[in-house]
């Protein structure tokens, strides 16, 4: 159970990205976060693993206070939370395998990892993850030689290497074409359904939300404006979330 309580983030410079956002996510749920660009979706996801330090508010995860965790405890929390990014954030010049293995960095011997040594079982695990997303043959290719869809699959494999209990996906399909978008979303769905991993996923397209999400949280200018089932978003709600002049597409 993830509990977000009165979360507020003000960036240095005064931009108010989140204002008093509160909601709970039961374990195993697939939550879509929607809203316009700049509505605070990325900030919200990044506050959960403290890539962004919240200004105030509290985030509890199974009773553990993430917001108050020390640096060392935070490391232990982070390794149980996988993250997938819009721009994949792979290390371009490293091989696919190294990129996937870097998901284990929170677990392995720190000294050996610095000279690029990973335990045999981790390497086998990485190959299994790559097989699962269908690019095992690319293991020794440099990451920047892959197409966008393949790179995002590497990103998912990297997150899965952490044995995560939760995955934060920050617009994972926004840089991909619709066909690829579905295939990536299906991987996330599979991880959610088969392994019971909680997924928090920010999305642009409402049809993806309808198809994959159990629940929707909508943000507008940093405030929570909607929290409910995907089917409950009618035209009235839609205008509240996306503004008066928005029109539905897709």
């Amino acid at each position: 159970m993830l509990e977000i309580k009165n979360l507020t983030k003000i960036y240095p410079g005064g931009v108010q990205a989140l204002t008093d956002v509160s909601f709970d996510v039961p374990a195993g749920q697939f939550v879509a976060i929607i809203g316009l660009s700049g509505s605070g979706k990325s900030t919200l996801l990044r506050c959960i693993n403290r890539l962004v330090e919240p200004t105030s508010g509290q985030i509890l995860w199974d009773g553990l206070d993430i917001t108050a965790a020390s640096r060392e405890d935070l490391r232990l929390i982070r390794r149980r939370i996988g993250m997938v990014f819009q721009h994949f954030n792979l290390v371009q010049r490293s091989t696919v395998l190294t990129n996937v293995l870097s998901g284990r960095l929170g677990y392995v011997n720190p000294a050996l990892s610095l000279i690029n040594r990973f335990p045999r079982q981790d390497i086998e695990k990485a190959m299994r993850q790559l097989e699962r997303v269908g690019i095992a043959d690319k293991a020794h290719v440099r990451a920047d030689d892959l197409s966008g869809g393949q790179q995002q699959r590497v990103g998912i494999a990297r997150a899965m290497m952490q044995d995560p209990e939760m995955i934060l996906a920050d617009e994972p399909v926004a840089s991909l074409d619709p066909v690829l978008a579905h295939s990536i979303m299906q991987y996330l769905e599979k991880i959610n359904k088969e392994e019971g991993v909680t997924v928090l996923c920010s999305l642009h397209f409402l049809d993806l939300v309808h198809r994959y999400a159990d629940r929707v949280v909508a943000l507008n200018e940093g405030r929570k404006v909607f929290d409910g089932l995907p089917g409950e978003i009618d035209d009235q709600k839609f205008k509240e979330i996306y503004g008066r002049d928005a029109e539905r597409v897709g």
Partner: protein
Amino acid sequence: MWKPNRPLLKSVGLGLAILFGLVVYAYGFQVTKVNLDETRSPRRQEQLVRILRALAKPDLVTFQQQEVEIDLPYYVPCPEGDVPEPTIDRSRPYIEAAPPCASPGETITVRGYHFAPNSKGPLNFIPPSGVKLTLGTIQADEQGNFTLQVKLPKRDSPEVQHLRATTRLSVGAPMPSRTAIETWDKIVETVFLALLATTFGTLLAVPLSFFAAYNLMRDVTSPVLAVALNLLLLPVGFWLGSQAASWMGSLTSQIRTSYLWNLLGMGAGIALIYLAIRWAVPPEDLLPPGRWLRLARTLVLVGASLLALAVFYLLSSTLILSGNWLESRLGSIGFIGTFIADLGDILGMLLSVIAALGGAGLAASLAGSIGRRLSRGLPASGLKILNVLLAAAAGALLLILIMAALDWFYQFNNPVVTRTLPGGIGALLGAIIALRLGVHDELPVGMAIYFISRTIFNALRSIEALIMVIVFVVWVGIGPFAGVLALSLHTVAALAKLYSEQVESIMEGPIEAISATGASRLQTIMYAVIPQIIPPYISFTMYRWDINVRMSTIIGFAGGGGIGFLLYQNINLLNYRAASAQMLAIAIVVASMDYLSAKLRERVI
């Protein structure tokens, strides 16, 4: 601001700007003493032509010279009575003079026959004293004959004097001249000087550049308590580290004279360290270990590091021993043995520094974790008091250490200035900072390190290596080693800045992704930063090598070895043909380095 609808004002402004420009350039001409009269003076032009012609003929090749010397007895003035007819061997080259004798200062004609075709040389007058006086220059024709009209010197003597024709002919294949050989020697020295300086500079600049990278240091913050503890414990750790090194050094000194003990010691040490690491650093920790286990592990690791120091001391002495042995056996390539022995020596010298830095690092991390724990565990009021006390102590210590460094330079010899005053002010400042900040506020330690390292790099960079070498010449004597040290220092500063700018321009995404996996800061640097900076680092290192080759050609002007020393000497001796050979060598080396580094950089990126 100019308004577009006021053209008059605009053109007046433009006129003023042009006037201002004129004044600036006029003043520039005056202070740089632009003097066109000098450029037109015939005397200057003559000198210029002479130098340019000398420069155009670099002294590169020489030939074996065949010299022919022919003497003709001659009377100046004519003796009383008959002039004795000189015996002339007409089977060899010979000279004749008409008239057969003459008064001092008279002009005579000298003819020569059967010399080597096209040979050249001086025609000398040899008085009884034997001191040659050059009368003219012989240039034999195709048949080897010449005619020369010369004016006799005013050296009259009753004895017979001589006219001597000396001709020289280049024979055989061209050989490199003495200058060419010296130039080759020195240009090789120059290239290696640049190579060593670049290598040493790069090795230091790579780790230092991370401290000067804004995006890495920005987020490094620490509570007041941890900072204060850090400042207090750092010198202690530094001292303990260097003590540990000297302790291990003297402990191993007993067995360091024998190969066998060295090797046995190293083997045993490495095995023990391996076991210690295997036990103390388990591959995966799913749960944080308990306190006692952690303590035991830390103690074992400290023991392992002491052991590692000892192993390195043994390695150093093994290198020195085997290097010296090789040096005596290898003969002409004995320099390889010397190099190995030098490596051992450098390792031995560096160990105490490394140990001291390691000790300081350990103390810092210990202080950091104690500080964090205390600042979390204590109640706010107690924490505030502790903050103020420790910050005051740390401030006092910091200023006293700074003053001690200044005292070393300026020798105040006054305890009030070096201890009491800075201690008091430091304590006051520390206490004020701790009072003003909230108990849980974090100090931007990373930014402080960033600014300090930036400032040091900028200051070092602004001092040319040519000036730095003066200090190093005093320390290690005139020669290429001083040049290597000066160029290395300059390279560290310049590369660290260039590198850090590269770190600042990397993509943030991978850093975010790797730190989100729960990686430590060091792991994040290793996996997200380093892969991104390898190509620019290689490219900048090569560029720097290029610069260092150019710098090392002139570092000799100040005594730093390399070809510059030779060039400087020859220019001062007005030996322009030799200087020209050296300039040519520099041009060739710099141009080919330029080409080579461009090619290599292309390939890397």
